[in-house]
């Protein structure tokens, strides 16, 4: 994954935050997605402005003790978003 690229979320999704977790549903794509607390944070950092590398940097600043894991977690979640067509990389 080219981490210089920006994650762009497909417009039209419905989102609900419940107890620091997120459930997302896209009616046109008829696809749903559950994001745990970490996933919810990554989702919110994918704001259409930050490149993937910056999403990783922000999280490493917040949780330096998990630095080794964070890049993998971010990439894995973005891959899920791409697979479900909820996001594209630009």
């Amino acid at each position: 994954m080219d981490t210089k690229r920006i994650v762009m979320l497909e417009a039209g999704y419905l989102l609900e935050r419940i107890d620091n977790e997120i459930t997302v549903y896209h009616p046109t794509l008829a696809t749903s997605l559950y994001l745990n607390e970490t996933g919810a944070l990554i989702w919110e950092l994918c704001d259409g402005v930050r490149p993937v590398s910056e999403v990783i940097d922000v999280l490493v600043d917040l949780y330096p003790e998990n630095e080794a894991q964070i890049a993998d977690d971010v990439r894995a979640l973005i891959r899920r978003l791409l697979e479900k067509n909820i996001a594209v990389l630009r």
Partner: protein
Amino acid sequence: MPEYTVSFAGFHVAIEYDSDEVHYFLSLLFDDLHSEAQVAEHEKVLRVAQAEVAGEYTLTNTGCESFSGALGVHFAAMLFDAVIFNLLNRNSHGIAFHAGAVAYQDKVILLPGLSGYGKSSVTTCLVTQGCSYLTDELYFIPADEHAPRSPFTRPLCIKYGAVSAVKRLVDEHALDNALGDEYGYIIPHRLLNPEFRQITTSPSLILIPKYQAGAELKIEKISAAQVSTHLMACDVNGRNLEGHGFRQVIQIARSVPTYRMVYSSFQGVEAAMQNLFKVLHWK
């Protein structure tokens, strides 16, 4: 040709039939959903009639022959699909979940799941352990919170792959009186649940069954965000609803405690459910 009307959640499908054999078959499948009264507007008229080949029947949908075969488990599955599709095709009054449902002390336990999750076999298991049967297929929750909920009460439909597990749960009498063939079993639910009473209240518990080969039985609480994602995948008529019913699903997910049951056999389920009822303060 006489008609047999099936009604569910305010919609009706008429099935034309041409013989006593077909009428008996329709009664076996739809007895709890049958309307005797004349219905002014049907969603669709299906037809089940004898085929040219002896012992075979044809299912006709919109003038097209959609299936042909003996009046057995496979025919029933095709007929259920056609009837359910037409009953829900224009229903925008609420959400129909692909789910089993049973009642324990008049509290409804919803068992949502996609095909293969084991809804029918877990439903059967719970019925044999003292729960009352409501459905193994579909549960309709109207958007109007005061309107009655509707289980699609049909016989238990056990697919071939689940037959051996279910045979260990139900007594021989039930199986002897069920319709069985190489595709599975259709078991009239009154054989397991003779004092049937329809219950139309909101679910008090959501239990998501998940068959996993070799797994130890585990019942664990899951979050509202997790269950709402799961429920959206089981939302059968979402296409008819604003936002595919997402807001109604969120409301259900926030208000009903939800557990996931991972299992590979039914050993220990009864004790685990009793523990769960204690946690929920159900007597």
